[in-house]
């Protein structure tokens, strides 16, 4: 028997076996298949398609983008920025000697201003 003929007989035997298996599916599976067919043929019953179809895709994409943006902003806005800001302010105060003295004598200048305004009130 030629190789080709052997292949053909083998395929015929496989086909018979597969046909037998498909026809002998258990009742539970057959019932589920019938339900699936009815669901597919129902004119306006698109509940399954509604869940698995395109209508959910924009919402899913939006949610995924929002999560990604949140994760990125959390990563990028981490502690170093505020520390950096504090450092700059400190440098400005430390390098300006006259301003520092002004801050230290602020109470004195406030008292002086009050005294001057009181004197001008009494004279006036």
């Amino acid at each position, binding site marked *: 028997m030629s190789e080709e003929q052997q*292949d053909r007989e083998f*395929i015929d*035997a*496989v*086909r018979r076996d597969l046909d037998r298996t498909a026809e002998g599916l258990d009742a539970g599976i057959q019932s589920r298949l019938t339900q699936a*067919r009815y*669901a597919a043929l129902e004119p306006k019953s698109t509940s399954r*398609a509604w869940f698995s179809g395109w209508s959910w895709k924009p919402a899913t994409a939006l949610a995924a983008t929002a999560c990604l943006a949140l994760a990125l902003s959390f990563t990028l806005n981490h502690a170093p920025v505020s520390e950096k800001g504090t450092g700059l302010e400190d440098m400005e105060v430390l390098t300006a000697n006259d301003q520092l003295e002004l801050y230290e004598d602020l109470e004195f200048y406030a008292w002086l201003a009050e005294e001057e305004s009181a004197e001008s009130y009494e004279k006036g």
Partner: protein
Amino acid sequence: MVFCNRTSGSGGVNDFLQSVEKRAYQMAHFATGNPEEALDVVQDAMMAFVRKYADKPEEERRPLFFTILQNRIRDWHRRQNVRNRWNAWWVGKFRTDDEDADPVQDLADPRGLTPEKALTDSATGNALHGAIRRLPLRQQQAFLLRSWEELSVAETARAMGCSEGSVKTHHSRAVQALREMLKDEWP
């Protein structure tokens, strides 16, 4: 339950779907290795077929339906592969005890094929089913569409989304692989 008028008459879509649903389920079961997943794949294919091609002439229905079914099976495999890669990434990320282990090796076969399952198939006389499951997906598709569903080479190529030459190669390799795997059980 009220169906659309496509279901009535000898050429109705209901009759057509009824005539292919068991074989479609069996094909999806071979590909996924899971009854629930197979039922989902078949139902998706039925819905897509009714939505798009219910009005097609009777002679065009079978190749169209099996094209949709094979697309759904390929989609299922892609999703499983992506899921497996994520799982491998997570497993690899948190594994600390054995740094040299390959996380991909620990993952389940997407078709649910385990050595135990293959052994059970063989022991219960389903050696053929076990062998078909073990075929690579493309060979499995080519074999089932050509040899079982008896689609032409051109129809099979369309269903699989490849050239006719590829179909012939996949089919020939599938037959050789099956004969080799079944040489002890089958004449």
